[in-house]
Each structure stands twice: as C-alpha cells, then as structure tokens.
C-alpha cells in the first residue's frame, strides 16, 4: 500500500497539527497575521505537493478512496478556495475583534481537508466522515463571532438542521448497507445492477438525495441557508457559498454516478425537479432582499439549481458541465464576497444601500463586481458563460429542452437583483463620501478572482479539454 498518492492530504494534516500547536504556544504579537501566513504556507505546500506527486488513478485503502481525474480537480480546487478565504479573513477578524482569531484558520483547514476527502472517497463511510468533518467545522465557523447574536443564531440553526440532515443521510446509507451488504460504492453499484430498483432501494435513494440536497441548499431544504449566510462572518459566508457546496456536489457525483449508476433514470428525474424548483424560487426570492449577504444566499441557492441541471442530464457531459460551472462559480463568488468583505469591514451592516456610490469610492472594486455579476448571469467572455452554455448543451442532449429553457428564463430574471447592486454603485450618490480603504490582501483576492473569471471566459478550451479527459467514461 502506497501513501504517496495521498501525500497532499498528509501534508495538509501535518500543517493543521503544527498550526494547532502554534496557536497554543505562540504568545507573541500579531497572532492573526502569523496564523494567516502559516495557513497560506500550508495550503501552498499542499498544492505544490499535489502538482508534483506522480499521477495516480485507482482505488486506495481497500476502496475507501477513489483517486481519479475528478478527485484531482477537487483536491486542487479546495485548497485554492482555502487560500482565498484565509486572505479574506485576516482583516475581517481584526476589525470585528474576534476573540480567538488564531483557531479560525485551523478550523478552516480542517474543513478543507474534509472537503478533499469527500471528493476522493470511494465508500459511504469516508463520504460521511468527510461530510461531518466539513460540517462540524462549518458550524463552528458560522458562530465564530461570539459577541454577535446573529452569528450565534446562524450557528445554532445551521447546527440543528445540519444534524437532522446528517441523520437523514445516514439512515439512507444504512439502508443501502442493509440491502447490499456493502458500503463501497463500486460494490453497491455491482449489486444494484443485479437487483434492479425495488421500492426500498428507491426509498434509500430518496434519503440520500435529501440528505445531500440539504447540504447544497436545494429548495425546499434550503431554509437554513439564508439565516446561516446572513449571520455568519462574511469570509465564512464566502466559504459556505463555494466550499461545502462544491464538496457536497462532489459527493453527489460520487454517490450517484459511481454508486447508483443503475438508477440513473430515477435520480436524474428527481434532480430535474429539484433543479427547477431551486433555481426558480432562489431567483424570485433574491429579487426582494435588502441585505446583500441574504441576497447572495438566495443567489447561491439559484446557482445550486443551475448546477443540478448537470445531474438532471445524467450523462458524462452533464458532469463535465457541472465541474466547469463549479470552477467558474467558485472563483466568481469568492471575488464577490471579497468585495462585500472589503465594504463590510468599513460599513459594517452589509445592506444593499452600503454599495451606493462605490464606483466613486473604489472604482476598481466596483468594476470588478460588475464583471463578477456578468459572470454569474452568464454573459460571454466571462467564466460563467461557458459553464451555463455547457449545462445547457448537456440538458438539451438529454432531451431536457424544457429545463434548459427554464434555466435561460431564470438567468434573465437574475439580472434584476444583480442590477440593483450595480445601480447603487454607479447611479446613486454615496452615503459616505471619501475613498474606501481596502486591505492589500483583499485587493489581491479580487484581482486573482477577476483574472480567473476573465481568462476562463476567453480561453476555456484547455481547461475543458482536461475536464473532459478527467470524466470521460472508461
């Protein structure tokens, strides 16, 4: 048994343990900055290791892990997300006077480790453990600002609902174990191909869909999301809207395309219905939000709906489209939240009216935000366009023209609420005059996100080629 393929995870774990010790024993000045530097260093080494570890495809540790192209994609994506969030967190923790800024980074890294595990797991047990590691870390991060009652409320609600959803998920998993005698996805897939789709197997599938659907905030299991997103510290909200969500999608792809491939007709139909409700309700509700974090929560619900279109397609083209869409969505959304953080650090309330006159106070941030919104809407020359286009194509190829049309109409609706922010930035006189001071690392985050969004929008073919190579069956 070789440990070399999971060296990145081992490096990350070592970094986590080391940083835990640093938090306890380092008593000097600027703990926050030191910890951020350590985190960035740990994540960078993880990414470097990932780049230099010889490529490996196959099953490891008695089938507990599946390392393939998709796993590689997510194992690369999640530490990158961690880098962004770590950069966004430092100034925020300082401004909001968080009591224990150091531990924030350790918990963040643990969540990222859990996400990487979810994406590369080949067994229901590892999926569940990865999910719990991510979730428990998320609950703590949501309630990180102890002085802020909203943060506490977010944590409690997220925790209670998350625990219930985990219960639902576990129940489904235990049913599968009872019905097939296996927890390994490949074994489950083999047995299911023989037994077909008896009622209880379908029931178990429903439990899995709902348990994981909760994690991606699919309507009607989304109700925790706006509360949790609004109350959580802004960098954490940024993390929630991309990290655990993308990881849950990775787990969904794993479970349903690896394990339940024989039930593709049933689950793709279920996801088609969920996608329809999720994007429509998400977009319509987002139109009427006053708080920008709440609005972005509904926006991210709507985007989960778009991504589920790839599942509804039920083909490898759908999976490719989902991965590309996730890539575009993750960096775009991180960019948006970096702007929201920069503004929130100075204005403090995250209301839509805080954006008034941003084009005068910080032309760069305002222009960047416009580009990010264009990407979320799916305008050409931005990353979001190709994601939408591929999802669209996948849906059409699977004969889901109606779903593709609903998606197009939803995209058009979503212009409405992004536009409200743009109008406030460019056409309304600022409440507070004067240039907006922005921390250097936030500018860096915005710039990198902007570059990714634009470069992906212009030269997406190499990325797409690799993704196709990753996910092609056989």
């Amino acid at each position: 048994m070789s440990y070399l393929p999971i060296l990145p995870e081992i490096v990350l774990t070592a970094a986590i343990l080391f940083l835990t010790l640093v938090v306890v024993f380092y008593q000097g000045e600027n703990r926050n900055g030191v910890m951020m530097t350590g985190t960035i260093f740990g994540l960078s080494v993880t990414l470097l290791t990932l780049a230099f570890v010889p490529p490996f495809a196959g099953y490891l540790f008695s089938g507990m892990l599946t390392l393939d192209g998709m796993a590689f994609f997510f194992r690369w994506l999640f530490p990158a997300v961690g880098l962004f969030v770590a950069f966004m967190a430092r100034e925020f923790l300082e401004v909001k006077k968080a009591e224990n800024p150091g531990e924030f980074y350790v918990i963040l890294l643990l969540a990222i480790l859990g996400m990487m595990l979810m994406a590369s797991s080949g067994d229901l047990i590892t999926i569940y453990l990865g999910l719990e590691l991510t979730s428990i870390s998320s609950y703590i991060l949501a309630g990180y600002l102890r002085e802020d009652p909203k943060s506490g409320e977010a944590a409690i609600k997220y925790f209670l609902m998350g625990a219930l959803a985990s219960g639902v998920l576990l129940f489904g998993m235990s049913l599968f174990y009872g019905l097939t005698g296996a927890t390994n996805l490949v074994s489950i897939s083999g047995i299911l191909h023989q037994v077909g789709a008896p009622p209880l197997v379908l029931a178990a599938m429903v439990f899995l869909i709902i348990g994981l659907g909760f994690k991606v905030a699919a309507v009607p299991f989304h109700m925790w999301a706006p509360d949790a997103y609004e109350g959580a510290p802004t960098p954490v909200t940024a993390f929630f809207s991309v990290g655990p969500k993308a990881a849950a999608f990775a787990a969904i792809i794993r479970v349903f395309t690896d394990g339940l491939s024989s039930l593709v007709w049933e689950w793709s139909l279920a996801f088609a219905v969920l996608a329809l409700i999720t994007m429509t309700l998400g977009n319509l509700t987002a139109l009427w939000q006053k708080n920008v974090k709440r609005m972005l929560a509904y926006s991210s619900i709507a985007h989960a709906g778009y991504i589920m279109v790839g599942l509804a397609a039920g083909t490898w083209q759908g999976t490719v489209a989902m991965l590309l869409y996730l890539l575009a969505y993750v960096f775009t959304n991180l960019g948006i939240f970096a702007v929201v953080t920069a503004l929130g650090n100075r204005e403090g309330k995250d209301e839509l009216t805080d954006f008034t006159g941003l084009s005068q106070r910080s032309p760069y941030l305002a222009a960047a935000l416009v580009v990010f919104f264009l990407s979320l809407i799916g305008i050409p020359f931005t990353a979001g366009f190709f994601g939408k286009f591929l999802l669209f194509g996948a849906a059409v190829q699977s004969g889901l023209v109606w779903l593709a049309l609903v998606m197009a109409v939803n995209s058009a609706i979503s212009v409405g609420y992004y536009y409200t922010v743009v109008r406030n930035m460019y056409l309304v006189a600022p409440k507070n005059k004067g240039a907006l001071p922005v921390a250097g690392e936030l500018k860096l985050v915005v710039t990198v996100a902007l570059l990714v969004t634009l470069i992906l929008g212009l030269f997406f073919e190499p990325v797409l080629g690799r993704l196709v190579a990753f996910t092609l069956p056989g």
Partner: protein
Amino acid sequence: MNLQLLAFMILSLVTLGAAFKVITARFITHAALYLALSFVGVAGLFLLLNADFLAAVQLLVYVGAITTMLIFAVMLSQVEEIRQGAAEEGFWRRILSARFGVIPLAVAAALAGVILYLYRFANWKAVPVAPDPNTTRSIGQAMFTTYLIPFEVASLVLLVAMIGAIVLTMKKEDRSR
C-alpha cells in the same frame, strides 16, 4: 416467540422509551440520566448481536464517561429546568401547537408509516457470521487495515470538535494569562 426476540423487544422498548423521555423531561439532569439508560439499552442490543467488545465500549464510554461528563456540565452551568417557551394553555391549544402538536406528530406518523410500509418489501442482505470468540482482535485489525482512513479522519473530527468547544466557550481573560 423465542427468547432472543423477547429480549430484543424489551431492549428496544427501553432504548426508545428512554430516548422519548430525554426530549420530554422537565429537568435537564433527568434527561441526562434517561440518556444513560438509552445507551444501556443499545449496549444490550450489541450483546444480542454477539458484539461483546462493542457492548463493553458502549457501557464504558457512553454510559460511564460521556453521561457523567454531561451531568457535571449541567451541574456546573446551573441550568436546571428546561424552560418550555410559550406555555400552552387549554386543551385545544396544546393539541394544535406548532411545537408539540398535531403537525409534527402527523409528519412523524406519516414518515413512520411510509417507512414501515416500505419495509414489507425489504430483502435484507443477511450475512451469516459465525460467533467470533475474539471480536476485539478482529475490530482492531479492521481498524488498522480496511478502515484505516476512516479511523484517522474520525480522530480529526474529534479534534475539530474539541477546538470548537474551546473556541466557542473560552473567555478572553483565560487567554491572556
């Protein structure tokens, strides 16, 4: 009806009944004690399945350690009575309230009904296993071979829970010392 089935019935009744009392008990110490009772029931179920080591661990860790700690925590935090929120007065109000009324009950009943109905179609994959005289050894072996990764990850889950508990409860003064 054989003896094993009877034992199973009694043990599940104890487990479920105690669990029900956990969520309805008026005093939090009572709830903690009922929780211990529920754990004892689970340990008994493990015994019925020939899992002697698991049963022992269940008793030692859950009943012995965790419940004791819970009771200590309750005593230290000085919260004795669980406040019932808006007290429902009158027969109808109590029946129809959102918290402890018909709707959650109806949903729960429907869920139980559907699941029981589906269980009729169950075709469980029964794996006949000869009673293992040395379960401890096989558990240990599985844990460090097949289930190595889950075992390690579980330790990280515990780590994050510990850090979280400290971070969310520790006061600032403690840190500066």
